């Protein structure tokens, strides 16, 4: 691939800790190859800041392959930046032009307090899973894996929902900071499988309750989550979840 070098202006959110108010800081960066990933550009900038005796920018990342869900930058007003279906770590500098200004912020949501700079606390998502995002089966209880045939169609749909990486971009994209897309993906994964049926009703009720407790907003169907989800989790899962929830509630009341 041919590559070019870019000069860019970065405006990055700096916040010392959860108590600090935070502010934007500007940085000029030069010699950024279009072959670099977005995070590699931050590596270059951080190396420079360290050499200049300044505090480098803290950001979350680990796999850099778009699968662990750790990276989480809000780039020019969009979680994970301009490329559709792509995490921050997989975004490459080819997406930008020489001279561009790029504004980078952390996920912003009441349920995701900032830890430092671009790093936020997403443990609320773990607690939603704790409230019911599993099938209750102890190790050793299982029967032969082929004992229950699962139609390919259902298995595929279950898989598609299960590819959620738990990054929280859907929350960051939503003006209500709702975690519905995340939650619905987990509910859908199990709803398509025979193994998921036993706890189907309690699961959805408990998980929605937990989401409310964590301070995520409610879903008003704006669709921003689906548009920004790096794994292209379908918003139809939310519609299905709403149905599941209503039915489960009705059953629980009867």
């Amino acid at each position, binding site marked *: 691939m041919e590559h070019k070098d870019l000069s860019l202006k970065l405006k990055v959110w700096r916040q010392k800790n959860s108590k600090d108010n935070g502010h934007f800081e500007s940085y000029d960066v030069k010699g950024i190859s279009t072959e670099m990933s977005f995070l590699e550009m931050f590596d270059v900038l951080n190396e420079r800041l360290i050499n200049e005796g300044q505090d480098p920018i803290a950001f979350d990342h680990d796999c850099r392959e778009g699968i662990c869900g750790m990276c989480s930058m809000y780039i020019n007003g969009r979680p994970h930046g301009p*490329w559709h279906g792509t995490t921050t770590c997989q975004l490459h500098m080819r997406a930008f032009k020489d001279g561009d200004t790029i504004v980078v912020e952390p996920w912003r949501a009441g349920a995701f307090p900032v830890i430092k700079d671009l790093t936020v606390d997403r443990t609320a998502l773990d607690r939603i899973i704790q409230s019911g995002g599993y099938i209750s089966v102890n190790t050793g209880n299982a029967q032969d894996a082929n004992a229950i045939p699962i139609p390919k169609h259902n298995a595929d749909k279950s898989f598609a929902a299960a590819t959620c990486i738990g990054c929280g971009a859907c929350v960051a994209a939503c003006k209500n900071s709702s975690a519905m897309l995340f939650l619905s993906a987990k509910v859908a994964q199990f709803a398509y499988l025979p193994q998921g049926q036993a706890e189907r009703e309690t699961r959805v009720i408990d998980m929605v309750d937990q989401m409310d407790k964590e301070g995520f907003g409610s879903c008003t169907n704006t669709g921003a989550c689906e548009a920004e989800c790096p794994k292209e989790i379908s918003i139809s899962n939310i519609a299905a979840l709403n149905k599941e929830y209503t039915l489960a509630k009705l059953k629980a009341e009867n």
Partner: protein
Amino acid sequence: MAINSKIPAGAIESKWEDYKSHVKLVNPANKRSIEIIVIGTGLAGASAAATLGELGYKVKAFCFQDSPRRAHSIAAQGGINAAKNYQNDGDSTYRLFYDTVKGGDYRSREANVYRLAEVSANIIDQCVAQGVPFAREYGGMLSNRSFGGVQVQRTFYAAGQTGQQLLLGAYSALERQVALGTVKMYSRHEMLEIVKIDGKARGIIARNLITGELERHFGHAVLLCSGGYGNVFFLSTNAMGSNVTAAWKAHKQGAFFANPCYTQIHPTCIPVSGDHQSKLTLMSESLRNDGRIWVPKKQNDNRKPNEIPQDERDYYLERRYPAFGNLVPRDVASRAAKERCDAGYGVGSSKQAVYLDYASAIERYGKIEANKHGIEDASHDEIVRLGKEVVKEKYGNLFDMYEKITGENPYNVPMRIYPAVHYTMGGLWVDYELMTSVPGLYALGEANFSDHGANRLGASALMQGLADGYFVIPYTIGNYLADEIRTKAIPTDHQAFVDAENSVKNRLHTLINIKGTKSVDHFHKALGKIMWDKCGMARNAEGLQSAIQEIRALREEFWKDVRIPGALDEFNPELEKAGRVADFLELGELMCNDALNRNESCGGHFREESQTEEGEALRRDEEFSYVAAWEFKDGKSWELHKEHLTFESVKLAQRSYK
């Protein structure tokens, strides 16, 4: 200290059954007062923590990421092996065992590998019960694919995201136990020391990565499930945070480190594109199922790949290894790629790459689809279109990833690939019960050395991690804890905890006060270069000796001149990195020592001095049929202990894939 691998007596097929029937048990009431610390929440750690919690133990689990779900296991792509024989193609426990021992170039422990093969089928059952959405056929049955080094189809998969799905299954089980109160989860915590009391592992010192506080945690036993150390090379397919620190602290507290030089260099990764490179991306081995690997027959051929006619291409794996073709094991495929590139046949701008080509697979699948749909005389374009759809369904996410990184569309032009560091077979020495040489300290998953010998077969790490966590440790740990039921929780104001915390504190103070001039990454990159050049795909005595000197000098410079910004009592990723690189700088030296000591070639370890006339790895069984277990001595050197390997069920043979 002598080595005792505690392999049960009896025939290989009955060792594990016998062991399980006679192992000591801990009754449920006693389990409730026994505490277990689990470091790591990858496949090994999450499955162990969840299962031990289910059994009623009090578990504390730690990971350095913000959520246990993000452990490096999440990135595994291609699949997980199991001897289910669902394809009726002749698979069996024995065959999986045999393939693994052979694939590991006869440098693994038979009894462990047999047990691994035995429990492999249970893993698939367990995962399906948890709701792991493996790929299925239209009839609703589970689908399998082939992986390298074997001739049966025993690999279960979920598109190119098998690790993700398996880990989410284990993570869900873990979170269920967190909700039930049997497991307490500490994310964004890094274990920085093992606490030993009367020779036994009794706890850890961990740093809360958000506040920087040091914490003391007691446990009747400690499980290290902290993953592999491939990042000693700086560039690898591992996640950025993968590190050796937990295992290294254990090593310095007396746990032997086994076969540190056994490194797996994976043949199919996206090549390095420049100095900015922070990591390398794997293109799953499953791609070798359908893709064909080639280079031009002419040296320095600068034509575009699609302009090179068939008869001017060298499908070198098919040529050299007709029986296995593109599916030879990883070590063989990697060396063959290096050989071609070193000889001047490499492609791309760096010439350090070979082609992985999907054109013929697309055509083959396209024709099958056309037949299926009864399309007669399908045009070439039609066939290609249909074929691309099939390939997309099988490997879509990998192809997308390739395109995002390189900007090239692999459906139309062959991918460029090159070998990269991927996995470490070496690790903490453990006995049959997965206990290290420190009583009460265990190692599971990639962190231990036990099952893969000198080369791991594809789709076997996920199997091993889950085998260790779900089906081995829950039994073997009882054998130790049964004698600990009278041990009360030791208060963490015990002098051993105080001392351990002080030593961690001092080290962190020293690091941050160096206030030198060079970043942590500077040193990490320099170390990586030494390791790659001299302890990488090919090694020789001279290179290894000079690597040892260079690493020592670099380590000295690090402790004089590293610059770590920020403070100790805050969120400080540079400080975390510094601690890890400091440990890599010691590990690197041990790896070179081990590679130097092992003057034979086996699996991923290729000593140039020991090769056949055709350039294949030449083992020297008489001298080297042992596990090299290194003991850290007197705070500065190592003593070698040999665990001799005996092969009763598999006949030692020179590996051949021809």
